[in-house]
């Protein structure tokens, strides 16, 4: 039977197993929405701004193993979605974004709500398609899912002109597709793996540094096995938190610009470094020139060859799926007679313990004002045993959440690491709840970030999404203020958040629960009360210390060991 392009689009999504579609209707996608209306296999989540549609789908993908799927209209629908797409691209999140387009005959005519979607998204997608013939539609959508979810994942855009949604053809959803130009390497080279193990076993001061690839590649179990078998220290990037259990004694905390003293020092002073699913970016290793001053051998495992030797030259590159490579490393290691040098490793741990003793995350626990770190620590205490997903926005609160919430499992920490997009927190928390309806979903945010997608309080009301918002309200764009204090002579240009709304009333006006917490003694009670309100969104407005800064800090352009400490 012949189906219309709109029917085919919806059927493809359903046949692909898509349960939630995040979107916002408009002229170019009306036929697709009409078909969505007639079925119940795919649930549509109506957001209040297209940017949030992409963020929510992105959060959904991060929290689950499934791709996030979005439907927006042409023109402004697409341009609003761009920030979300770029955010997902930077963090390698698998997504398929279906965009409406003006009819094929109108393309290039500056038609109403026309933008060159393929052109405007090209630099921030893994791939994109413009469908020009309805007979290509089903295969194109299948290809989009295939590309988005394999190799190094990423967002893929499928642009569908309106006339294609009314054109008809036979429908068959392909079971699989293959592209001659796209064959990600999955299996690591076994000779390289042997070389890597040899280096690791000879190491006197080894270090294991892992990133978001462990989370995306579902490789946490294999990583834990390897790290424990070797007995070496392990650190995670901001994107990699939860990839290795934070409460494990071999974990040194996060590394990087706001990483722990011990993680950064061990990173800088190790003699053999194993990097897995990480990309040595500027917020993680600081200046690569300073990083390279120390003599060391580097093994780098990544599914994306272009991530290897991009910023730091490595000695043993291994291209492959991180889970497969780590599993092979575990197999080979078990079969090897050689063991790590116990004396050297013991001495190395002694050194690390000395660095740990520096207690780099200390803060004033007796303060008369609410310390943001204390709120996150308390939140961790109260939610650690529940099935909890924590999202954050971008800024100081994000770093405190990363430092003080101990993630033991992957996919529990949702934040914009690469692009650093303020406004992701609330939609990410929504996505986590849709992926795991029974979970506790907490959004740790600040009064500046939360206002960038505040309209989604309405979506939360409509779909009864009981997000717990922990607003660390210091009346400043805190990270901007911190940089201005450190590097711009205390000139706080435009970083004061004036004319803030009454967040309690704001939450209430959307039909949610609002709380304001001003005394350190009330923090625990408020959190307990909010968490007990299982089916309600609670907006907790914590009035926190205005002058608190995030430590340690590696200033931009410096080496990892040049930290500013508290």
């Amino acid at each position, binding site marked *: 039977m012949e189906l219309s392009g709109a029917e085919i689009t919806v059927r493809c999504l359903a046949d692909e197993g898509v349960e939630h579609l995040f979107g916002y209707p408009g002229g170019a996608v009306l036929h697709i929405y009409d078909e969505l209306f007639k079925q119940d296999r795919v649930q549509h989540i109506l957001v209040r701004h297209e940017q949030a549609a992409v963020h929510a789908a992105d959060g959904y993908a991060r929290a689950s193993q499934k791709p996030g799927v979005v439907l927006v209209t042409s023109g402004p629908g697409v341009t609003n979605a761009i920030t979300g797409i770029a955010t997902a691209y930077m963090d390698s999140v698998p997504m398929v974004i279906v965009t409406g387009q003006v009819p094929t005959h109108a393309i290039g005519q500056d038609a109403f709500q026309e933008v060159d979607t*393929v*052109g405007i998204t*090209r*630099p921030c997608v*893994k*791939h994109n398609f*413009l469908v020009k013939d309805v007979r290509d539609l089903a295969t194109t959508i299948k290809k989009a899912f295939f*590309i988005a979810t394999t190799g190094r994942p990423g967002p893929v855009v499928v642009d569908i002109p309106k006339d294609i949604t009314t054109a008809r053809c036979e429908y068959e959803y392909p079971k699989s597709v293959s*592209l*001659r*130009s*796209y064959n990600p390497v999955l299996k690591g080279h076994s000779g390289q793996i042997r070389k890597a193990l040899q280096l690791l076993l000879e190491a006197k001061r080894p270090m294991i540094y892992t990133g978001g690839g462990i989370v995306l590649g579902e490789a946490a179990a294999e990583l834990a096995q390897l790290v424990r078998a070797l007995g070496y220290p392990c650190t995670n990037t901001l994107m990699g938190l939860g990839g290795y259990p934070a409460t494990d004694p071999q974990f040194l905390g996060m590394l990087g610009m706001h990483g722990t003293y011990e993680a950064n020092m061990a990173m800088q002073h190790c003699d053999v470094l194993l990097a897995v699913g990480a990309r040595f970016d500027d917020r993680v290793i600081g200046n690569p020139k300073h990083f390279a001053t120390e003599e060391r051998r580097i093994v780098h495992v990544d599914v*994306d*060859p*272009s991530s*290897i*030797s*991009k910023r730091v*030259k490595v000695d043993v590159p291994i291209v492959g799926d991180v889970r497969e490579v780590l599993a092979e490393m575990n197999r080979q290691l078990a079969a090897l007679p050689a063991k790590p040098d116990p004396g050297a490793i013991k001495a190395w741990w002694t050194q690390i313990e000395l660095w740990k003793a520096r207690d780099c995350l200390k803060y004033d626990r007796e303060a008369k004002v609410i310390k943001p770190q204390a709120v996150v620590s308390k939140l961790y205490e109260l939610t650690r045993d529940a099935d909890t997903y924590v999202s954050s926005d971008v800024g100081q609160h994000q770093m405190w959440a990363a430092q003080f919430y101990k993630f033991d499992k992957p996919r529990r920490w949702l934040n914009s690491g690469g692009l650093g997009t303020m406004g992701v927190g609330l939609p990410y928390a929504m996505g986590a709840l849709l992926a795991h309806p029974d979970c506790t979903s907490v959004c740790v945010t600040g009064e500046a970030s939360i206002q960038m997608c505040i309209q989604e309080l309405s979506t939360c009301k409509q779909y009864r999404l009981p997000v717990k918002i922990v607003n660390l309200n210091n009346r400043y764009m805190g990270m901007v203020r911190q940089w201005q204090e450190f590097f711009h002579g205390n000139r706080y240009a435009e970083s004061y958040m004036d004319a803030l709304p009454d967040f309690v009333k704001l939450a209430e006006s959307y039909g949610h629960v609002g709380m304001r917490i001003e005394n350190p003694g009330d923090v625990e009670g408020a959190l307990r009360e909010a968490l007990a309100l299982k089916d309600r969104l609670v907006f907790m407005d914590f009035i926190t210390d205005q002058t608190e800064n995030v430590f340690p800090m590696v200033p931009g352009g410096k080496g990892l060991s040049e930290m500013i400490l508290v």
Partner: protein
Amino acid sequence: MRHIISLLLENEAGALSRVAGLFSARGYNIESLTVAPTEDATMSRMTVVTSGSDDVIEQITKQLNKLVDVVKVVDLSEGEHIERELMLVKVRASGKDREEMKRMADIFRGRVIDVTDKSYTIELTGTGQKLDAFLEALEEGVVLETVRTGASGIGRGERILRI
């Protein structure tokens, strides 16, 4: 160092802009870029001349390989190869210079492909250096217009780029 990189890519709308966009977005140099369909109509062949340190060239080939439309990438500079570029040059050719211009074209194995009473249009192929040498050999002011294709390259001997 100068490198000449050959690519096979899907003959799809937008494939060229993906490659060009990659170079501009990542700040890589493009000295020249040529592209045309191959004997297999579903595929285009592109030659990019670029320059950069070994690290940069390594990144360029990796990033090109990452583009979904790119089927194959070869850095021709890594082995024996041949490269050619076509130039059309319109020169002043009147009076006593007319004979000299013809002779010059002959020396460089160029062909006069269009003639007016005041000008010649000369077709010349060769490496970029040879075309440069021809232009330098001409007297100042005689060149009216030039158009160059940029280099096309192919491996020597048994070295073949195909899928």
